[in-house]
């Protein structure tokens, strides 16, 4: 029993971490008023960069860092198109989702002898050290260090958004950019920076798959996490702590299917596979209620327009 419970916690945390980074990426971007549906693409690029850099340098931390930078570089396209040039943010995001896997695959083939996946690379350490608790039931609590980083990122974003002047400005820009502009806030610059941070976080999210959950980049490493993260943003009402909770819930639902499935009681695995979605709908209806986006979310800001 204790074993199953600890396992449940461990799996929940492992599963939710890439989603946490992804959803924080969505929160920061959308709070500043830029819809970012390109999270998935940014995560793919981050996932590839992380494992490639870690493979060549043997330093997973450098890989993690470079994943953030690569994510931000892709986000630069999104920021340029949708903030500087006021293009449609959805179109730009879709373009990134189409472009990014191509970029990752191209470089992967270039660098790794035409292979569609990277070799096995050095991964990030565990929270309590490699194999520290092996042999005890608490081994499943020895989660990846990215779990702690994800939590820290959520905490920092909550603090910045709600407790600092800069956070207030971000929220103002997302709700009513014209008002913010009249008060001397540089709307475009604020949004631009937020989109870059968004890309960086998505890159970290990708890295937390290929440097912690598995130890190589494959074409299926990122398969839908970016979109689930997007759902977590809405589920969590565009708040960092809300999104974090939503990701934990998604993770828990997935962990339940694993822990409850495959036992001696024959529950069809197809039925178990439905659990995350059913649970999501139930929680959404019962506890979350209406979720409203920042008012100016998705609307390019044109100076002087009404």
């Amino acid at each position, binding site marked *: 029993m204790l074993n199953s419970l600890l396992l449940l916690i461990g799996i929940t945390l492992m599963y939710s971490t890439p989603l946490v980074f992804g959803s924080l990426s969505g929160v920061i971007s959308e709070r500043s008023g830029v819809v970012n549906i390109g999270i998935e693409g940014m995560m793919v690029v981050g996932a590839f960069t992380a494992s490639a850099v870690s493979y060549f340098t043997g330093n997973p931390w450098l890989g993690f860092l470079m994943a953030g930078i690569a994510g931000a570089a892709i986000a630069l396209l999104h920021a340029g198109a949708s903030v500087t040039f006021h293009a449609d943010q959805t179109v730009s995001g879709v373009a990134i989702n189409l472009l990014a896997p191509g970029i990752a695959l191209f470089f992967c083939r270039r660098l790794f002898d035409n292979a569609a996946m990277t070799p096995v690379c050095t991964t990030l350490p565990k929270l309590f050290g490699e194999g520290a608790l092996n042999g005890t039931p608490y081994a499943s609590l020895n989660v990846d260090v990215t779990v702690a980083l994800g939590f820290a990122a959520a905490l920092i974003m909550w603090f910045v958004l709600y407790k600092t002047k800069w956070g207030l400005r971000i929220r103002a820009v997302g709700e009513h950019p014209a008002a913010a502009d009249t008060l001397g806030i540089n709307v475009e610059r604020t949004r631009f920076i937020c989109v870059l941070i968004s890309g960086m976080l998505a890159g970290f999210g990708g890295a937390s798959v290929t440097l912690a959950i598995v130890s190589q980049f494959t074409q299926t490493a990122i398969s839908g996490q970016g979109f689930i993260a997007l759902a977590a943003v809405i589920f969590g009402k565009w708040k960092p702590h809300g999104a974090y909770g939503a990701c934990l819930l998604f993770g828990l639902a997935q962990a339940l299917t694993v822990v409850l*499935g495959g036992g001696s009681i024959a529950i069809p695995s197809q039925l178990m596979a439905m659990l995350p979605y059913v649970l999501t709908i139930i929680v959404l209806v019962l506890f979350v209620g209406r979720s409203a986006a920042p008012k100016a979310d998705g609307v390019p800001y044109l100076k002087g327009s009404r």
Partner: protein
Amino acid sequence: MQDISRRHFLGTAAAFAVTAGLTACGGGNAGGTGSADAGKSGKDYKIEMVTDTGGVSDQSFNQSSWEGLQQLEKDNGWTVQYIESKQESDYATNLDKAVDDGSNLVWGIGFAMADAVAHSAKTNPEVQFAVIDNAFEDAPKNLIGVTFRAQEPSFLMGYIAARTTKTNKVGFVGGISGVVIDQFDYGYQAGVAYANKEQGTNVEVQGQYADSFSDSAKGKAIASKMYSSGCDVVFHAAGGVGAGVIEAAKEANKFAIGVDRDQAYLAPDNVISSALKRVDKAIVEVSTKIQAGDIEGGTNIDLGFSEDCVGIPEEHKLIDDEVYKAAIELGDKIKAGDIKPPFNKETYDEYIKTL
């Protein structure tokens, strides 16, 4: 006014970016063709293969297939080529393209492509078609389905697992339940049952499906659960999910068994063996027969130990020599037909009765 025109321009630019992204993918299909020195030795037999969405360097059966074709090019001087599919909707177009290229034989790699190939075969009766991993019912005369008896190496994996475990518990992680994965599942279980009988042990098998072939986090979660509940050897037949299984083995310092290719390179201290499907050999064998006309169209070919198209790796540093030898002998028995590993629930139940 200026703003409007600027927006218009950028709308176009963004649309262009999307198109560029699409053509980039499309370019992969068209441009992703292999070497094509047409009929150097005068034998102008042309074979093209269409990959499934894994692509030609998937370090799995697409790659094996291409290696098989390259072998044919080297040995017989035939022209060989591949076309990569980026998504399932590419199958039909890519098959058409392969036909338009003037191929004599077109290979479709993977059961996902079976319907598309069957359709293409009906509309192009002058071209030969063959599919890996699918058996057809009443196929046209120019179509051959090639399947593998994956239960045979899986049986050996079960045997090895049961004799390697110290905890008397072994695991199986499946991708999505179906004809192909059932072969691995029941073959493995039967292997464990055989070892139990032979050794008088009582090793139990825990099995669970991930309902995915790509979700490696789920594979890792399932395998972690198995290891924490006492399993010390876990076999996977789950594509990308398996990467998570092997990662879990690494972290828990337990054993895993790979699939399709020798996956020991993923974790040399943890992957004790792999259930191999020699798709490259199958491609060579079947292509040669088709070219020579030694094979009747509209049939299915089932390949296993006796055709040398499945197997286990020679490397076995993590397995006792004695166990490995016993496994090889079992393989010979399967080859001789003395043991017929089961491949689904019914045959498994029957097999257990005969033990």
